[in-house]
């Protein structure tokens, strides 16, 4: 059932409005910050209020106006869109509160512009999630690019300028390819509305065109998701303040990229067409390559944020790999990994930021014994790190398990091997951090004077760490994100894998146990 309601637009609009108010209230920091918090809470409530109906199979849909003469500016809450919208709007709250603590603790300049751009980013992320057609999607995609740019160059150093340029070159150029691809899709299909299972068919265009088109459309997502060899911007963008890294690398930008690939695979092409074209195979191999190589690079990084960045690159490729397997369980795992990775990686980044603000240390080799001074921070860090490596009872396990089963489903044992190896690699690049922090002796004694991080930072960290545990045990906790992912995955692969529903439910039950 389709419910005509403006609610999706309210969800997007509330933080745009907040951005405007933040710009105006630059002289009064407390008022300004209250706008950030208020917008994040209202936004979450609006998004969550739409979940029950979506779980029952309804969609909220609204066309605000026509974006071009024939294509509407439409937001539509299908299951996978809701999933991403829930994640980004919910995580906006902890990151927002954390950012306030971080920015004040760090005495950053230009905070007004920072918080405004931050709000626009979240708007764009929710817009990307709920976009009902490819052109609306593109509009928010570009908005996200432009709004993230000021966050990247926030430090206003030469390095920041360089990273900003790099970011723009990567994202704008591929954004143009996405635009060209969108134009071609509209020309051959006559529509741009997302449809579960895809709306393109074999008879619309020659095979070579469909294949080329697939890469035009996915390359923008691949860049934002940091798929190798298009990942160059991501480690450089680490020059941004840590809340930005948390937002960029856990919620908004990279997830938008991964989400773009899911949209293109599941809702523009559809698994059956892609299976005929064989184009998704290439994406899968790139993802496999990225998973392994990025983990190896991550092991060599001494800068904490850079190590986490490479970890992000690897983890996002799980999503790409899961989606390009074209199997129901792979798709389910990919979608749920968006949630899982968001919760875990945001915890890791916030911990890294807390260390930076409290002790001004960025390199892992300098963190000897710091865990004993900041036990809560590093306790949370350890939980999230275990989750990234795929330990059971942490949320990362569930999504990885599904992707694993997806690999079995399509009979690709090689993917299986890759997933296992990468889990080990994940352990080997994150666990040393915990080891150094907790068990190495602080010989210089320089951490003696430091205590736990500021409460405004500690609270969000505990929240997200706890969440990754809870979701690891009860994946449906709260707003039934696992169900949402399941509905979406089944809708996408329905008709392609007939047995999809039965298999999925049985394994979901297994995972629940």
């Amino acid at each position, binding site marked *: 059932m389709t419910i005509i309601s403006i609610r999706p637009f309210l969800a997007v609009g509330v933080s745009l409005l907040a951005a405007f108010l933040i710009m105006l209230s630059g002289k009064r920091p407390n008022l300004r910050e209250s706008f950030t918090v208020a917008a994040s809470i209202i936004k979450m409530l609006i998004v969550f209020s739409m979940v029950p109906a979506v779980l029952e199979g309804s969609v909220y849909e609204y066309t605000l106006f026509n974006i*071009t*003469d024939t294509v509407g500016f439409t937001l539509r809450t299908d299951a996978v869109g809701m999933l991403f919208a829930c994640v980004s709007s919910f995580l906006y709250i902890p990151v927002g509160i954390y950012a306030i603590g971080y920015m004040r603790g760090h005495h950053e300049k230009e905070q007004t512009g920072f918080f405004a751009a931050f709000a626009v980013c979240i708007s764009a992320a929710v817009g990307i999630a709920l976009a009902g057609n490819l052109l609306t999607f593109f509009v928010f995609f570009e*908005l996200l690019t432009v709004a993230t740019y000021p966050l990247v*160059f926030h430090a206003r150093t030469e390095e*920041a300028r360089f990273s900003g340029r790099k970011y*723009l070159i990567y994202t704008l*150029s591929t954004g*143009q390819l996405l*635009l060209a691809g969108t134009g071609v899709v509209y*020309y051959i299909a006559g529509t741009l509305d997302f449809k579960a299972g895809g709306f393109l068919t074999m008879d619309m265009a020659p095979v070579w065109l469909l294949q080329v088109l697939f890469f035009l459309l996915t390359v923008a997502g691949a860049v934002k998701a940091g798929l190798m060899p298009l990942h160059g911007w991501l480690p450089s963008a680490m020059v941004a303040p840590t809340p930005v890294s948390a937002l960029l690398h856990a919620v908004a930008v990279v997830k938008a990229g991964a989400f773009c690939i899911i949209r293109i695979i599941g809702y523009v092409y559809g698994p059956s067409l892609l299976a005929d074209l064989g184009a998704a195979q290439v994406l899968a191999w790139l993802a496999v390559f990225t998973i392994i190589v990025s983990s190896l690079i991550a092991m060599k990084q001494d800068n904490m944020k850079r190590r986490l960045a490479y970890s992000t690159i690897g983890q996002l490729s799980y999503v790409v790999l899961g989606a390009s397997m074209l199997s129901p369980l792979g798709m389910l795992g990919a979608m749920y990994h968006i949630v899982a990775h968001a919760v875990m990686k945001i915890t890791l980044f916030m911990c890294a930021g807390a260390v930076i603000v409290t002790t001004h240390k960025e390199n892992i080799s300098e963190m000897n014994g710091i865990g004993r001074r900041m036990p809560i921070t590093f306790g949370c860090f350890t939980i999230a790190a275990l989750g990234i490596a795929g330990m059971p009872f942490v949320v990362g396990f569930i999504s990885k398990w599904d992707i694993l089963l997806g690999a079995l489903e399509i009979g690709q044992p090689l993917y299986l091997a890759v997933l296992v190896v990468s889990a080990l690699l994940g352990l080997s690049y994150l666990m040393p951090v915990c080891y150094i922090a907790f068990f190495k002796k602080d010989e210089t004694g320089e951490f003696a004077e430091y205590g736990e991080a500021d409460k405004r930072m500690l609270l969000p960290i505990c929240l997200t760490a706890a969440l990754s545990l809870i979701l690891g045990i009860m994946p449906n906790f709260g707003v039934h994100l696992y169900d949402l992912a399941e509905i979406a995955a089944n809708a996408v692969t329905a008709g392609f894998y007939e047995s999809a529903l039965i298999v999925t439910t049985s394994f979901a039950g297994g995972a629940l146990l």
Partner: protein
Amino acid sequence: MRNLPVLIPILPLASAMLCLALSRINKNLGKYVVIGALTVSFASAIGLFVEVMRTGETIHYYMGGWKPPLGIEFVIDEMNAIILVAIAAVALFVCIYSQPFFSEKTRRLKRQKDNSNYADGTTWLEKGGFYALYALLSAGLLGMTITGDMFNLYVFLEIASISGYGLIALGGDKSVMASFRYLLLGTIAASFYLLAVAYMYSITGTLNMADMAMLLAAHKNSPNVFIAVSMLIIAFGIKMALFPLHGWQPDAYTYAHPAAAPLIAGLMSKAPALAMLRYMFYIIGVDSPYVAKALTVIGFLGACGIILGSVMANAQRDFRRMLAYSSVAQIGYIAVGLSLGNAYGIIAAVFHILIHAFMKSSLFMVIGAVRYRYDEVLISKLGGLNKHMPLTTVTLVIAALSMVGIPPTGGFFSKWYIIMGSLESGHYFYLVVLIVSSLLNAMYFFRVLETVFINKDAELEEVRPKGRFELPLQMLVPIVLFGIVIIAIGVLNAHIVADVLSLGLPEVLAI
């Protein structure tokens, strides 16, 4: 109501005549008469636009009651109704914007060594002269758009050009030479236009555009049409600064008087572009084999202009010159839209004429405002502009994003329609050109934004006192307004395209 069409060009024309005489009586009187005349023009243009939309019929106005083909006819259809509104709006608001440059209250405290010697006298002659020229230029541009007579178009073209030479020459030392070179090239263009008219007139014996279109139908393959088409390309190519005939344009835009540059840069190349569109699609018609060939040539030149203009813009240090080269590129967009020769192509061209008029004039208003306060025009001097002039910077950002083509600003949508048109006609080549040019645009505009936001605050010396706001209200309001208009056109583009432009398409192409 019946006489609205004639008010549009005649009032600014009359006010130009009166302006100098009235300025003799009171220094400001002439200026107010010009602003008043432009306001009435603007109101009439809106009135006509509403009327055309309401009745859905083309309005014909016969000068002095002489019916065509004998008399001069003014024609307002959907296409030029909306362009008229845009021209009248830009002319009016830039006129309001120009006032503080000539005000005694805001005399310059000191002069920087460069960029300061534009005319800013407050005597009756200087003030009256500027506004008389300004009114003439507006009248010429409005007239070119509204007229339905080929020779009348020539007259208005020359009115606009001659007053344009004057306004450019007011911009300081270097501007005189720029103006003279433009004069030479502009006259060549006008001569070619006259020759084209002569060739068409000699086979049909009429000067009325509609009549000409009807009579030319029998002469689609006549060599006269071939010669006329080639001469029209040269004539309008020079006037709209189509690559490689753009030689006059960078200097002229760069050195034009800062108070008139927004109008000159925003519109002086647009009215000829619209005239070119009229000739190609409404008078001679795409079914003529020569027009089809001409369109190929125009498209190729446009594509070259897009790329080379953007590359040249990247190499500039002077913000105005960068904008001038970017205009070469943007005119290329219009040319490419034209050359596609299908409905979406024409829509894209007209839409780009519309949006680019606002984008370019707002950018020139921004740099004019910087020059007004600090006498600076270099990009490197814009560092930290957001702290001195926050609202101006907002418009700068919006206009820059629109030039790059980021939705939802208007610039994105002309790109979208060009993409649609080029896919429809199978010209994938233009798709590539468009992508490359967007990236080049992004390079130079984000370089400016980077300078504004990242660079250390430039050392600026105020040459004029700061008032209550960052700029005098007469300047600030048009700047902010144009920033809003750029977004509004983007958001409303579906209406503009579906309800206005697609109704004004030539019959053979109507969707």
